């Protein structure tokens, strides 16, 4: 190969030159030549910068070399930016007369060898911007004559050697953009001649050494983007020569030392991105040379007390993202300001628009966004005649946009979003020929969009989202040839889209959704070849789409939902970049174009509520990124193509309310991400495939109103995430699988209108999150209602009607206190209704054998006469007892009440002493006990029904009026207490 030939050749040269060197004796430059040729041989030199290094020419003419005046020594080697690679050749250390070594901006690898300490005459060492790794050798401290040392922009790790403090002649020290760690050595303070110190972008930690103040000549100190912490040493204020101080993006804390005002020559101060707190010291006003000041992204508080009248050289001030309060001083700016950029966003500034700024006529960029500013924008805002960027968003400005804004002829970016600005856009806006971006979204503006806006020929972005603009879109909108974004969503705009919009040929995003726009899409849209997002939903657009839309090849997102578009959707399939197509709720007809499958990144395809017919094209199986497929409420027919099984990312599959036929596909079970499956209201037949149990993330499964038959597969129990299961109106038969108890998250379960038989599995009682409904009506279910249904404490609707359920109604159902509707009608139930059911209409229970109790007839009536009427003696006794106890009550009332109260307290404490446990479980347990021990115990639990129907009066007497009366409670307890 070439390179091996070259290296062989150079080896030969080296050998030859060695002989030369020996034979010609002790001439220094010829010795240097010898070493230099060896160096040449070690370096990879694809650009051939070392080609001139040859014994045929005098050494002092070699490229990159500088000889001493007498040509006796090589004193400088400059091979900067020569695409050299390889490691630093050891022969270099023999060039002891070198004063300058510059290998910067190459691709040199390996470490800096300790032997570098032998080049004692070095004054300038430049190795920056290579791929050097390893550490900075301690021996570098031997280079006592060194004035310039720049070895940054490498991959040097480890600490800065302390020996660096020996380099007392050093004027420039550049160690930036490496991976140096540890702290800045205090010995840096020995470098009395240091002018330039750059430590940026390393991993230095620890404090900034106070000794730095000894570097009295220091003009530029940059240590940004490290991990320095602690406070800024006050002694830093002694660096009278300092012009640039950059400590940005460290972890410095504490407050800014007022002593910093001693830096009388400081022009640039950057402390952004630290943890500084406290106020901005007033003393900063002494830094009269300051041009750029950035204190942003700290925790600074207090008011802004800097005055441009002191700091007349200020050009840039950035205080964004702090906790500054108050307003800006009214005398902040007087004449002759140089301030060009003022960024105060994300603070807590309050009050009105700071009028003190209006004198800063030099201002070009003003950012007051994300503060608490309020009030109207001043008409005199046009005094800021040089302003290009005005950012006032996310405040509470109100009032209208002053017409004078039209005089700000340099304005390029106007951000007023998220305020409470009212009124209309002044026609004077049309004078802003430089205006590029106008964001007025989230305000309360009204009126029509002035046609004059289309005179702003530089406009690239318009966002008026969420206002009350009315009228039509200006017909002359097509004049905005540079428009990229037009966002007019959620206004009251009406009328058609002006055809001229098609001439905004650079338009990429068009959002006209949520308006009252009408008419059809203009054919000129074919010119919008850059268009990638078009959202027109919730308008009244109509008519077929222009065929020419097919030529829009860059469309990614289309949302035309909730309009009245008709015709086919073929013209929307020209792009192969679609990621979302939503045409829900229109009148599109024809079939689903198979061409949609060319957009292989399509994630959401929603065509519901249209008049689409034909079958699902099998090509859709190519849409591997498809997450959402909604074809519901159309006239689609045929079978669901098995190719869809390759859409493995499907999460939502909605095919309901069509005319699909065939078996319910078993491959649905392979869709592991499926969360929502709606196949209802079709003509699917056959069994519910057992494989469906594999869709373990399924949340909603709706198969109702089909012709599904066979049993409900027991694998349904594997759907442990399921919230909603609706199988109603099919031909399902057999038992309800008890495995359904594993669907513990079900809150809605509908199995009605099938041929299900056998008993209701008692396991359904374990579905304690059932809430919306449990509907088992219109089946052939038999046996008793399991008492476990009484555990469904959250259930709000229960329908067991039209079955063959028999036996006693379990009294546990009385616990279902959340029930809002109940239908047990048309079964063979008997027994007493729980008292809690008395509020339901009698129709809830009609068509049963022998149910009794409110709201039906009293059980006493139906059970005969033995127990239902008390004898007159008993009545007399009761009346006497009432009178007697009533009189006693007055005497002992307070005593009793307190006793009772104490009793209650004991009950609670004893309850609590049972400790821990799940409340519901415990309640259930208690409730079950109550069932076991019968009614009496139950009554005891309900403390103010204690007396109700049981003891005193037969069941016609009622909880309500007793419970509302304290006296009865007390009376009860008096009895209990044996009075």
């Amino acid at each position, binding site marked *: 190969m070439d390179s091996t030939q070259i290296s062989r050749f150079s080896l030969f040269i080296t050998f030859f030159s060695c002989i030369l060197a020996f034979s010609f004796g002790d001439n220094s430059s010829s010795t240097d030549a010898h070493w230099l040729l060896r160096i040449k041989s070690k370096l990879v030199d694809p650009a051939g910068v070392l080609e001139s290094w040859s014994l045929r020419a005098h050494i002092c003419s070699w490229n990159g070399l500088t000889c001493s005046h007498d040509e006796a020594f090589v004193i400088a080697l400059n091979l900067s930016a020569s695409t050299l690679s390889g490691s630093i050749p050891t022969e270099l250390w023999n060039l002891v007369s070198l004063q300058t070594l510059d290998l910067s901006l190459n691709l040199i690898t390996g470490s800096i060898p300790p032997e570098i300490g032998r080049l004692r005459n070095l004054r300038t060492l430049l190795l920056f911007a290579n791929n050097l790794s390893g550490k900075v050798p301690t021996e570098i401290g031997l280079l006592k004559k060194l004035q310039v040392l720049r070895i940054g922009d490498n991959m040097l790790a480890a600490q800065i050697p302390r020996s660096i403090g020996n380099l007392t002649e050093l004027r420039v020290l550049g160690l930036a953009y490496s991976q140096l760690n540890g702290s800045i050595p205090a010995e840096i303070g020995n470098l009395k001649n240091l002018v330039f110190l750059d430590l940026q972008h390393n991993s230095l930690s620890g404090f900034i050494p106070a000794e730095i103040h000894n570097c009295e000549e220091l003009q530029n100190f940059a240590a940004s983007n490290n991990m320095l912490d602690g406070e800024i040493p006050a002694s830093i204020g002694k660096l009278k020569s300092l012009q640039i101080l950059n400590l940005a993006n460290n972890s410095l804390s504490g407050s800014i030392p007022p002593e910093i005002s001693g830096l009388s020559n400081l022009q640039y101060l950057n402390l952004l991105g630290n943890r500084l707190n406290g106020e901005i010291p007033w003393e900063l006003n002494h830094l009269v040379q300051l041009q750029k000041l950035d204190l942003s992204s700290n925790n600074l508080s207090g008011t802004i007390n800097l005055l441009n009248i002191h700091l007349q050289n200020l050009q840039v001030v950035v205080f964004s*993202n702090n906790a500054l309060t108050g307003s800006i001083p009214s005398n902040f700016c007087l004449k002759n300001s140089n301030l060009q950029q003022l960024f105060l966003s994300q603070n807590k500034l309050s009050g009105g628009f700071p009028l003190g700024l209006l004198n800063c006529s030099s201002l070009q960029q003003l950012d007051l966004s994300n503060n608490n500013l309020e009030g109207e924008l001043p008409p005199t805002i046009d005094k800021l005649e040089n302003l290009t960027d005005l950012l006032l968003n996310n405040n509470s400005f109100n009032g209208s946009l002053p017409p004078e804004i039209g005089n700000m002829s340099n304005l390029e970016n106007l951000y007023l979003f998220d305020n409470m600005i009212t009124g209309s856009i002044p026609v004077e806006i049309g004078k802003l020929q430089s205006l590029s971006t106008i964001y007025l979204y989230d305000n309360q503006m009204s009126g029509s969009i002035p046609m004059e806006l289309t005179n702003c020929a530089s406009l690239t972005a318009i966002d008026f989202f969420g206002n009350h603009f009315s009228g039509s879109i200006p017909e002359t909108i097509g004049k905005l040839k540079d428009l990229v974004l037009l966002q007019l969503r959620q206004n009251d705009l009406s009328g058609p889209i002006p055809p001229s919009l098609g001439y905004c040929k650079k338009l990429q995003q068009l959002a006209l959704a949520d308006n009252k726009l009408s008419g059809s899409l203009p054919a000129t849209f074919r010119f919008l070849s850059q268009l990638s997002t078009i959202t027109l939903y919730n308008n009244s657009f109509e008519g077929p789409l222009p065929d020419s839309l097919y030529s829009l090849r860059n469309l990614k997102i289309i949302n035309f939902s909730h309009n009245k578009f008709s015709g086919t959707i073929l013209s929307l399939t020209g792009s192969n970049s679609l990621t979302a197509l939503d045409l829900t709720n229109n009148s599109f007809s024809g079939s689903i174009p198979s061409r949609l499958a060319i957009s292989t990144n399509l994630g959401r395809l929603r065509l519901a509520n249209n008049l689409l017919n034909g079958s699902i094209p099998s090509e859709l199986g190519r849409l591997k990124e498809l997450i959402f497929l909604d074809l519901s409420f159309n006239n689609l027919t045929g079978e669901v193509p098995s190719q869809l099984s390759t859409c493995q990312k499907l999460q939502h599959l909605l095919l309901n309310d069509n005319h699909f036929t065939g078996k319910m596909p078993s491959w649905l079970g392979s869709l592991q991400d499926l969360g929502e499956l709606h196949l209802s209201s079709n003509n699917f037949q056959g069994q519910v495939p057992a494989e469906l149990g594999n869709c373990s993330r399924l949340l909603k499964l709706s198969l109702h109103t089909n012709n599904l038959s066979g049993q409900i597969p027991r694998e349904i129990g594997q759907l442990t995430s399921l919230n909603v299961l609706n199988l109603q109106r099919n031909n399902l038969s057999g038992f309800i699988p008890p495995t359904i108890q594993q669907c513990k998250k079900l809150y809605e379960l509908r199995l009605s209108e099938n041929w299900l038989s056998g008993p209701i599995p008692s396991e359904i009682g374990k579905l304690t999150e059932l809430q919306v409904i449990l509907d088992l009506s219109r089946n052939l279910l038999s046996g008793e209602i399991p008492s476990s249904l009484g555990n469904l404490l959250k259930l709000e609707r229960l329908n067991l009607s039209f079955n063959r359920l028999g036996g006693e109604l379990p009294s546990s159902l009385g616990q279902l206190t*959340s029930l809002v509707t109940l239908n047990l009608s048309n079964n063979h139930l008997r027994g007493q209704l729980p008292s809690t059911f008395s509020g339901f209409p009698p129709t809830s229970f009609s068509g049963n054998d022998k149910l009794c109790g409110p709201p039906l007839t009293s059980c006493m009536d139906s059970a005969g006469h033995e127990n239902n009427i008390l004898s007159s003696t008993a009545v007399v006794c009761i009346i006497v007892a009432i009178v007697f106890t009533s009189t006693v009550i007055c005497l002992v009332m307070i005593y009793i009440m*307190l006793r009772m*109260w104490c009793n*209650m*307290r004991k009950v*609670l404490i004893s309850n*609590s002493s049972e*400790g821990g446990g799940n409340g519901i479980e*415990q309640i259930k347990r208690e409730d079950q006990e109550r069932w076991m021990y019968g009614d009496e115990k139950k009554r005891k639990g309900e403390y103010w029904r204690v007396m109700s129907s049981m003891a005193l009066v037969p069941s016609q007497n009622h909880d309500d009026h007793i419970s509302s009366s304290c006296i009865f409670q007390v009376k009860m307890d008096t009895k209990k207490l044996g009075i």
Partner: protein
Amino acid sequence: MAPLAVISLSLCFLLPLLSPAISTNSEGNALHALRRRLSDPTNVLQSWDPTLVNPCTWFHVTCDSHNHVIRLDLGNSNISGTLGPELAQLQHLQYLELYKNDISGEIPKELGNLKNLVGLDLYGNRFEGEIPKSFSGLKSLRFLRLNNNNLTGSIPRELTSLSNLKVFDVSNNDLCGTIPVDGPFGMFSMPSYANNMRLNGPELKGLVPYNFGC
């Protein structure tokens, strides 16, 4: 040095320029804000894509036909974190089901603005602080289950104005004071209050202050 200055300064300025208006939908934003407060180790909130027009196709969110959120079902979902005031943006919410998770902190008083709320199930979490008095604003509320939390303070008397309240469960908390007897509180049985060490018997108006022992 100059380029550094320009970079750091222009960054501050360019950021808003680079992010043009993303359409805001208050309910979606509220839910997304909730998501940011929650830790979700089992990714039940993975589908909550804030760039969608509305949250109606997010899992565990149910909307009505006007695309307003009416149900939030995150019961038993292994989520932790806190709730924030932004939930009050869900003005049409009927069911807020956050039961059996590991949610902590106070119940935001702003929930009291949810005028359409029918069911509020916060049971089985680690909520602390008091039951917000503002719950008296939940005029449609039928089901309020706050049991199995670390709630303290007394049962706010303001809740007696909730005429639709049908189920009330505050068992297994650390409530104190007495039990109200007015309004719907005439119906609730003892288990609703069980296991509150410092909760005393029913209110005896005029004799013992309702926050007795708090």
